[in-house]
């Protein structure tokens, strides 16, 4: 059943990287449906998930057949960051993951939108959606970090736990014309500013290096990703071509 990743062009590589990030995080956020702490928050997370799914559809279509790519690839053929596949955990983990990713995605898409590459039109539209995702995560980070003792402890734990997955975001992606060093500096500044305002400690643990995470772009994923994929793909694999 393995469909090899569409080989070759730098455009496909880049479209898969961006598209898989959006698809996988969208699925993770969708897992909150029916389980979110409050109804209002459930709708907010579902909205973000749908924005990301829309981005994923455009991007994966640039790389091949969107359904085939989403439902029939094996784990090793996915090119998403390990950050986005991390389980939802408690609400603080979901928010920390979103803050890290949306800040990155916002910076990257702003740069792509300003260029004249193949991703500029998509990025120009997506950047408005992402600004809202980032704001949502920031608002919650501030409230949880600067909230009760319990919420502060949980938010700090989440921020610390996911920190090791953030170095990978700034590995250059073939086909994406971006100033990766500049992006990383801006990301550190913006993220650090939010964490400090939320009375949280900016982690000092490593973000890159041998023991840390960071090979999702090469197709190496963490253990929970396999289970997520199994759930995401089983319907299509059990009933190929099913429609309703």
């Amino acid at each position: 059943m393995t469909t090899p990743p569409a080989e070759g062009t730098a455009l496909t590589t880049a479209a898969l990287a961006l598209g898989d990030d959006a698809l996988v995080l969208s699925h993770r956020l969708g897992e909150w449906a029916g389980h979110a702490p409050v109804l209002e928050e459930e709708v907010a997370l579902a909205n973000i998930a749908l924005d990301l799914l829309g981005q994923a559809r455009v991007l994966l279509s640039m790389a091949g057949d969107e359904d085939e790519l989403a439902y029939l690839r094996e784990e090793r053929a996915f090119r998403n960051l390990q950050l986005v596949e991390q389980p939802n955990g408690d609400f603080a983990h979901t928010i920390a993951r979103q803050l890290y990713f949306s800040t990155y995605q916002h910076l990257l898409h702003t740069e792509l939108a300003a260029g004249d590459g193949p991703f500029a039109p998509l990025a120009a539209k997506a950047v408005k959606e992402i600004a809202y995702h980032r704001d949502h995560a920031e608002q919650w980070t501030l409230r949880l970090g600067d909230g009760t003792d319990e919420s502060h402890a949980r938010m700090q734990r989440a921020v610390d736990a996911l920190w090791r997955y953030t170095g990978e975001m700034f590995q250059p992606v073939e086909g994406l014309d971006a100033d990766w060093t500049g992006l990383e500096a801006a990301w550190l500044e913006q993220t650090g500013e939010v964490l400090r305002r939320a009375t949280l400690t900016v982690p000092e643990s490593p973000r890159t290096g041998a023991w840390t995470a960071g090979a999702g772009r090469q197709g190496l994923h963490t253990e929970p990703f396999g289970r997520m994929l199994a759930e995401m793909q089983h319907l299509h694999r059990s009933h190929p071509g099913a429609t309703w």
Partner: protein
Amino acid sequence: MTHTDWPLWEVFVRSRRGLSHTHAGSLHAPDAELALRNARDLYTRRGEGVSIWVVPSSAITASSPDEKDPFFEPSADKPYRHPTFYEIPEGVQHL
């Protein structure tokens, strides 16, 4: 899971410039900023709005159903308050 400590907010959405804000519904949120964002997600998903107000439900003073008669009944039999006694000049359409 209960969240009785989150206050209720009333949401008013203006659908187009020039129109007034209209009550859209209510929601729970811990504070005004998040109430605005929740309102955006709940009530403007399909392009309904250009502006949102949120108001704590507790800040609204409402007329009571028990007072319905003294409040509203007397206006029913005062036709002179309606502009129905003017002759409409010929040729005026859309009035």
